[in-house]
């Protein structure tokens, strides 16, 4: 059984899980919630975006640029599959 390497990384898994609970979250919310550096968070969301798991929305709040992220259907499926695989491994470990 293989884990999705894109999601398996702890920061990316947490980003995906936050976005699974809401419609969209912006860069600042992820930054403050996960207590990451800007560069670190940028790298992780770029990987998720290039995997097609996230949709990036750029807009303006007044004059301030704002970047929001939304979980794509492909991302939701991949996340569900990831947890399915993890539960299967866990079951194997318990038995």
């Amino acid at each position, binding site marked *: 059984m293989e884990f999705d390497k894109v999601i398996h990384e702890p920061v990316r898994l947490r980003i995906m899980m936050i976005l699974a609970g809401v419609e969209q979250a912006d860069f*600042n919310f992820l*930054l*403050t*919630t996960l207590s990451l550096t800007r560069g670190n968070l940028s790298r992780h969301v770029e990987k998720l975006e290039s995997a097609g798991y996230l949709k990036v929305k750029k807009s303006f709040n007044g004059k301030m640029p704002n970047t929001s992220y939304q979980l794509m259907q492909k991302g939701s499926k991949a996340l569900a599959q990831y947890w399915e695989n993890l539960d299967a491994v866990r079951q194997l470990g318990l038995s």
Partner: protein
Amino acid sequence: MNREQNNKLQDMEKLKEIPKWARRYTENRTLPFLFFMATFMFLSLVIAVPSYLGGKAYQSGNMVLFWICSFIVVLACAATIIFSVPKWSAKFTERLTMLLYGKEGDVKLALPEKTKKQRLIGSIVGLLFGACVLISVTLGVLGFIPIEYMQPVSALYVIPFFVCVGIWQRPAVNPAGFLAWLWPGLYAIHAILVVAGVPIQFGRPWIFLNMLIPIAGYGILCGLIGHFYSRYALKKLKGITHLEGGGTSCL
């Protein structure tokens, strides 16, 4: 599987709670709601005080004061209607949310696109609510509804209105969450207690507080509970998402 691996798997299990706490945090960012309550509180005062004075003026035959009070009440009712229609207040709420919670970042729940029919229903509900306020206040001013029963009478349209608003805002407002129904619930209990004759009413000249406290008082109470719950949810969320070792460890 050794103990260390088992512990890591259990930690992973906690991560399944992230969507729940992210959602609860988002649902309970209620400061803009508190602002709206303060606005409604002000509007209620602007409706209640001239209604009381207008009633007095009508009874004593002072028609100039009566018409001035009526004009103010109509203006306040119109403002209530504007604030009650979700379409008109949605953008303002969004801006206010960004202003109040900007430091924590922006996070939104899914608001499904309303069809034309649904938008029309929303507008009709808002207008009906405004009309009910206007009619009941007018009947109160003219003495058809005893002032002590204004709150129980208003409960007949306030509670259905808030139930409609709760349903309208799904899934942004979780109808299964107790906070969505706390306010209409308290308002209904208050009305029942008044009808049952429990002495919870103010006498003259503070009679207008009999309406204001159930509407704004319970609303502000629920908003504050929601806001503090959002702090708790954010703390839980941060606790679960906290990464030891700067997020470099992996299962």
